[in-house]
């Protein structure tokens, strides 16, 4: 398997894996989305809330804030505290604000981390308050999996795409430019009396150029042995950490399968 990074900017990682089975790449994608554990606020104890937002709305907004840290925590389901939550599987954050002026915005950066977990982004507004309004709360963050709640999903966009193949028959092509016009991603260009592809990986395989071409000179197909994985983190882990974590989870699953097969009686 040959890996080449296409781009790694704006929080989005795009890499091509050559000679990788599409089912394998999809397994990695699904593990990133559903089974990589990250922390998120699970319980909120509100001591005082005189803001115009209900307690429930504030708790919901807190839950969606991406959190960093928490590597030392264990999953609550696997913790010996019987899913009650204990210092081994929970980390506490507190927030205590009294607005001094009108239209005062409380940002996620105001939350004080009592444990290892802290907000990944300090500029998320939690509430807007007028002078004199108070918000005092204690939030308990837990590790969790994306399959249980979207707040534990470490990625926003995460996709696998096959390698597009764009074949242009120069004998049939009359350079009418219909395909250049039709392409929604604008990846075709005329250069030296021929149609050329400027960025192959931006092709969405929509085949609009095929339909637009009167002499049928352009043909779109794909190669499913080479696929691109697009990962866009929400901030808890970096994109490369996510891919590595997904590989670890997969290995761990294989180990579990191996040990359970080995523990079967000989007769099997």
């Amino acid at each position, binding site marked *: 398997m040959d890996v080449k990074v296409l781009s790694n900017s*704006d*929080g989005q990682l795009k890499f091509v894996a050559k000679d990788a089975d599409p089912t394998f790449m999809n397994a990695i994608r699904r593990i990133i989305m559903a089974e990589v554990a990250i922390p998120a606020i699970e319980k909120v104890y509100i001591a005082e809330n005189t803001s*115009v*937002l209900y307690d429930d*709305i504030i708790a919901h*907004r807190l839950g*969606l*804030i*991406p959190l960093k840290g928490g590597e030392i925590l264990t999953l609550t389901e696997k913790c010996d505290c019987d899913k009650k939550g204990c210092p081994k599987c929970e980390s506490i954050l507190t927030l205590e604000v009294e607005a001094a002026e*009108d*239209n005062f*915005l409380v940002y996620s950066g105001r939350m004080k981390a009592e444990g290892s977990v802290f907000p990944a*982004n300090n*500029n*998320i*507004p939690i*509430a*807007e*308050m*007028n*002078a*004199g*309004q108070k918000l005092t709360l204690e939030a308990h963050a837990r590790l969790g999996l994306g399959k249980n709640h*979207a707040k534990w*999903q470490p*990625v*926003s*966009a995460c996709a696998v795409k096959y390698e597009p193949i764009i074949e242009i028959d120069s004998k049939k092509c009359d350079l009418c430019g219909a395909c250049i016009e039709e392409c929604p991603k604008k990846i075709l260009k005329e250069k030296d009396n021929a149609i050329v592809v400027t960025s192959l990986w931006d092709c969405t395989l929509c085949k609009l150029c095929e339909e637009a071409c009167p002499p049928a000179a352009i043909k779109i197909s794909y190669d499913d042995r080479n696929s691109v994985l697009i990962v*866009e983190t*929400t*901030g808890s882990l970096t994109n490369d950490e996510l891919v590595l974590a997904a590989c670890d989870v997969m290995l761990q699953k294989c180990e579990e399968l191996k040990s359970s097969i080995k523990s079967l009686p000989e007769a099997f």
Partner: protein
Amino acid sequence: MIIPVRCFTCGKVIADKWDEFKKEVAKGENPSKVLDSLGIKRYCCRRMFLSNVELIEESLKFYVRPKEEGKT
């Protein structure tokens, strides 16, 4: 009410970019260009900005301060 923390559809964190968006649009900048410069590419995230109305500012006007309550 108040800008949602994440995009309803894809889950991208968008709330942190709202202040910048609001400031630039108030200056008269084209919202489409502001969203491009903030790196909001998908239309699911873009509609979160374009369709948001800060109703919380309207409800804040009706907040009765405890001190004023005593006077009246």
